[in-house]
């Protein structure tokens, strides 16, 4: 079991030298499944996403993050990425002067042994496929990374990168926030295109809305830095109708 999952075990973490945010998170995402992580603002969802990716502004005080049975805690963010983890950022940064195509070529080559750079045709086909899955125009590839992008375009770029880099596990941090329905559908289409037996994902969201388009296999609920309950996809619907107080009452949290 453990060699085909992303497992968060009793994870405690805080801002480096500051306030504690995660107080013992337990969560398992098996490869081949898409899970949702829901919870009110400030519950620690985004912090956990960044910690899994290796953000150095946080420190882990206890617990484990296991990628198919291997701890990633001693790994740098780039090593985690090359091991198959991917984070779709809530607020992707801009990198002026660096085109998306150029960046993705470097990122792909970073995953390959030296001297075995990806061929031009293979690379171009990958890009074409990803661009098509997102109903995007190829000209986007020549634009500089997120420079002058709208919020929606940035989110779309995160999914584009996911499709090209083909991670084994992805965490999508509020990829739906700030999107109108049309943009949401496009992004969902991209994520659904990635679905398959070799891919596991954790969708972090406040709203049930996204889950109409990307139907999750399981739903986890995080409150105050802990996962307090989990259940089938219907749990998301119930949450949407009854609110988080209802869950708190249910589990006595």
């Amino acid at each position, binding site marked *: 079991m453990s060699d085909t999952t992303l497992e968060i075990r009793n994870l405690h973490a805080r801002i480096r030298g500051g306030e504690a945010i995660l107080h013992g998170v337990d969560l398992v995402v098996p490869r081949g499944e898409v899970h949702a992580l829901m919870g009110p603002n400030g519950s620690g969802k985004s912090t956990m996403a960044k910690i899994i990716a290796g953000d*150095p502004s946080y420190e882990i005080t206890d617990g484990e993050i296991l990628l198919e049975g291997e701890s990633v805690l001693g790994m740098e963010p780039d090593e985690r990425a090359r091991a198959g983890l991917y984070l779709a950022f809530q607020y992707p940064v801009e990198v002026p*002067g*660096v085109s998306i195509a150029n960046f993705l070529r*470097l*990122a792909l080559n970073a995953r390959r042994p030296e001297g075995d750079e990806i061929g031009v045709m293979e690379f171009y086909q990958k890009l074409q496929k990803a661009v098509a899955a997102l109903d995007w125009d190829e000209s986007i590839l020549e634009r500089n990374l997120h420079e002058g992008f709208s919020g929606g375009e940035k989110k779309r770029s995160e999914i584009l990168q996911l499709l090209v880099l083909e991670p084994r596990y992805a965490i999508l941090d509020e990829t739906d926030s700030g999107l109108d329905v049309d943009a949401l559908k496009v992004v969902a289409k991209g994520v659904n295109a990635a679905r398959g037996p070799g891919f596991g994902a954790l969708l972090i969201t406040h709203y049930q809305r996204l889950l109409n388009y990307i139907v999750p296999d399981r739903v986890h609920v995080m409150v105050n830095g802990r996962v307090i309950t989990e259940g089938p996809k219907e749990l998301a619907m119930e949450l949407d109708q009854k609110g988080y107080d209802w869950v708190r009452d249910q589990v006595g949290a």
Partner: protein
Amino acid sequence: MSDLTNVNPDAEKLEGMEHTKQYDFRLPETYFYRSEKGLDRRVIEKISYFKEEPEWMLQFRLKALEIAEKKGPPRWGPDLSGLDFDRIYFYIRPTERQGTVDSWDEIPEEVRETYRRLGVPEAEQRVLAGVGAQYESEMVYHKLKEEWEKKGVIFLDTDTGLKKHPEIFKEYFSTVVPPEDNYYAAVNSAVWSGGSFVYVPEGVEVEVPLQAYFLLNAQSIGQFERTLIIGAPGSKFHYIEGCTAPAYTTDSFHSGVIEIIAQDGSNVRYSTIQNWSHNVYNLVTQRAVVHAGASMGWLDGNLGSKVTMKYPSCYLVGEHAHGEVLSIAFAGDGQHQDAGSKMIHAAPHTTSSVVSKSISKGTGRSSYRGLVQIYEGAEFARSNVECDALLLDEVAKTDTYPYIEINEKTAHVGHEATVSKLDEEQIFYLMSRGLAEDEAMALIVRGFLDPVAKELPLEYAVELNRLIELEMEGSVG
């Protein structure tokens, strides 16, 4: 001439030197003659004698020396106290015959060896050595050369230019940068040697860039090169000089003068990327006079050196003249890059634009020093200056000295300066996609420089990136 010294290569001493950086090495040279250390009348007489120059040039040199002695070094700008003329050779004549080299085979083996050690592929080596232009085949290069000659294009080293084309030479030489201009221009005027002489006749367009034969030994660029470029009315061309010059470790002073005359309606571009060894004082005067309807562009990349002072200038003297400066500076540990530009608007409807990008690392410091001057009567002149500084760490420094003098009501001048630090969030983001920390930093820096680098021909842009990456080695903390 009993005091002329025959100097054998001091190979032993050179071999003992540590080559700490890949690009920072040199191979032994074989000198034929070099002057005694220091600068005086006798040294200048010898230079002129050796070059078999006309009398007027000797007189010009001697007068320039007088001017230099009267002026003395400037009292502003970076610290130049480490510069001691008494310890400098002002003239070194190489054993190789004077003049440019026609074929790859004529390039000395040690120069070729240097290129090999730089890891430059042979096709590119030829380009860098100025032999093969953009093509590998010598046949193609000779065809180019023939074509240029047919069109009346003159492209020679400056010493040969003086010999072969004395009339053109005398008409323009020192008209843009007279020795009175500044102390280092005066020193250069007294002891100049080498450089390029370019004349492109009226209406002639040269499509393939004219690339200076860039010898690593004392020949072409030398310490005191003097370049004179004349674009006749309506001509159009791009002159490119230099690249990863493995610079000298014994000569600590470089002071070039580059004079450009862009006549009516011409379009002249001058690009240079220089990488001096880290003990060199690099003090260069680059100036163009831009006539009516002409366009002049400087692209200037400054890496290496201990101190660089360099302010490419355009004197916009004709209506609708346009001047442009794109510059990149990288100040690593212990280095001070004091670079900038001067745009002098002396005619109506003149326009200028400056984009300056600097990177500082460790104890490095980069300064932008720029002047925009608009004369009364230069109606509707427009100028825009943008300088961006990137600091790679907490220690690195940058500063900006913009001088703006406007004496014309209808003029429009914009100045924008930004300073940014290498952003942790950007680094984390790029790392989260699989790039190692040093790759992430290099990518951010490349992106920062991209607006300038993309104006370079590809092989130079590649070379620039390689140099920047080497300079950044050890930045990951």
